[in-house]
């Protein structure tokens, strides 16, 4: 999977920069491809797409600049400005030789420009310059915990849940306003306002840019994990029209979760979440067909699964289990492990999966979890039993496309094909991900 960032290079003018190395990616057909580090200029030349490496850099940059300036709002604006400038200038001028250094310098300069424009800003600049450690051309190197600090800031309990996920996707993962809007089926204006309000709250109430103390870490953890899981899910099944998944966003979430496990090695749930993400990622090569349609788990070519990723996930799960504090992510990872350990769908240990869902429901009882459990129940107690039980979820899930898609599946299994088609049509009306819509459509027309 992805290689870590390349060696740190100290430039003659004192700027310390980590140049990202290329990522080695193993493709499904056995080819190994090096994804170029930095910007990917689209084949048509006109569009420039800032890929994962840059968003990754953007996150670290926002963190480092926040520390340097003591101002998260200013830092985030400055990095956005730098990214926008890159997108505007690089197609015409070409990608600079050291793109990360370019971004760093540009962002720093934008921030200083802004400060110079106001009296209060000039005071602050004077303070920064008076620090004997300050070098006019340098910036502090991003510390290893930089992105975690930023993550905890964005996930502070003083911010609303919506604000937390929006701010994290923006500042830590570097998504644009448009991408965030698309992920939450919202408008750019709404997202933009939410970000502005959240940053204003960070400023006005003085939410600190720092890692919580040891006593607070465990308490702050659940929100951070929930946000990372949301980030992963958005990459896993993109609501975005042009791609069925965004693997880089999944990898971003995975990387941040891994940093968390290093920060809190005795906490089992981050390990559980990381195991879950690794095992999902390991199935990436088999999840979509050539037309970009979803391939269901039962139909996936398991030979295409990344065995090392699965093994890593299972090792993490064992490590979590040894801490003897089960939780929601660990159990979800265990369910996925039972699936992945089976050589084929027909020999999956369905009773074990039902038992694990029962355990999961004791930690977290939601209609969606109950729905997923019923898919397993169909294999242990038969589709008629599952169909009867699924009706109890109708009130809660009538607006959820997967409720109808699951019903359709169960109806098909009992030979009620007309009703199954009706349920699939309802699912199609409600589904928003293009990949899922394509799958349902092919069932209806196939």
């Amino acid at each position, binding site marked *: 999977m992805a290689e870590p960032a390349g060696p740190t290079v100290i430039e003659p003018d004192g700027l310390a920069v980590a140049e990202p190395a290329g990522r080695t990616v193993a493709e499904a057909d056995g080819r190994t491809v090096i994804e170029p580090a930095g910007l990917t200029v689209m084949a048509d030349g006109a569009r420039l797409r800032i890929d994962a490496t840059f968003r990754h850099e953007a996150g670290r940059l926002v963190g480092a600049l926040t520390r340097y300036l003591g101002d998260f709002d200013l830092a985030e604006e400055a990095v956005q400005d730098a990214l926008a400038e890159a997108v505007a200038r690089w197609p015409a001028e070409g990608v600079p030789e050291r793109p990360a250094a370019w971004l760093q310098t540009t962002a720093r300069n934008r921030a200083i420009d802004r400060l110079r424009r106001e009296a209060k800003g000039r005071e602050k600049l004077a303070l920064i310059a008076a620090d004997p450690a300050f070098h006019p051309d340098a910036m502090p190197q991003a510390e290893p915990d930089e992105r975690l600090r930023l993550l905890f800031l964005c996930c*502070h309990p003083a911010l609303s849940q919506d604000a937390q996920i929006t701010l994290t996707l923006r500042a830590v993962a570097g998504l644009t306003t448009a991408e965030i809007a698309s992920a939450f089926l919202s408008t750019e204006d709404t997202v933009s306002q939410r970000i502005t309000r959240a940053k204003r709250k960070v400023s*006005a*109430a*003085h*939410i*600190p840019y720092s890692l919580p103390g040891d006593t*607070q870490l465990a308490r702050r953890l659940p929100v951070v994990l929930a946000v990372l899981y949301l980030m992963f899910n958005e990459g896993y099944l993109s609501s975005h029209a042009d791609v069925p998944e965004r693997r880089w966003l999944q990898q971003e979430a995975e990387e941040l979760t891994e940093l968390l496990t290093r920060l809190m090695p005795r906490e089992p749930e981050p390990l559980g979440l990381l195991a879950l993400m690794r095992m999902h990622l390991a199935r990436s090569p088999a999840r979509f067909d050539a037309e970009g349609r979803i391939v269901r788990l039962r139909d996936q070519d398991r030979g295409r699964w990344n065995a090392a990723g699965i093994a890593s996930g299972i090792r993490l799960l064992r490590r979590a289990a040894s801490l003897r504090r089960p939780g929601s992510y660990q159990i979800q990872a265990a369910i996925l492990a039972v699936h992945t350990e089976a050589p084929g769908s027909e020999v999956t240990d369905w009773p074990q999966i039902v038992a694990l869902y029962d355990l999961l429901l004791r930690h977290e009882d939601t209609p969606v979890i109950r729905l997923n459990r019923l898919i397993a129940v169909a294999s242990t107690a038969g589709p008629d039993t599952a169909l009867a039980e699924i009706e109890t979820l109708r009130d809660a899930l009538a607006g959820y496309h997967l409720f109808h898609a699951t019903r359709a599946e169960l109806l098909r299994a009992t030979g009620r094909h007309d009703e199954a088609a009706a349920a699939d049509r309802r699912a199609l009306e409600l589904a928003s991900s293009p990949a899922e819509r394509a799958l349902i459509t092919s069932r209806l027309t196939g």
Partner: protein
Amino acid sequence: MKYLLLFVDNEETRSRSEAEVAAVSEKIGAWWGEHSQTGEILSGEQLQGAETATTVRHDHGTVTIVDGPFIEAKEHVAGYGVIDVKDLDAALELAKSWPWGGVVEVRPILEME
């Protein structure tokens, strides 16, 4: 950074027995003294009960005077503290340790230049 801690009574705090109130009041005295010494608490007061309040309303030039607190609610302001601490987390720690319980709103004070 200066914040206002607004201490609010709710049904739970109002339903305490005299003995419970006396016990907590001692803790409050100690808490207040400790955090004043460190310079975290700058000032503050306990208010008399909500039933002693009178509210003046300005409405488009008309002024009305009403018996009672400004909100008809189960929660009432019981007191306040002005604190000076490093950041919101420090303010939240203080609010969390407030011995009286109830509700505490933490609001940054607008710094005038």
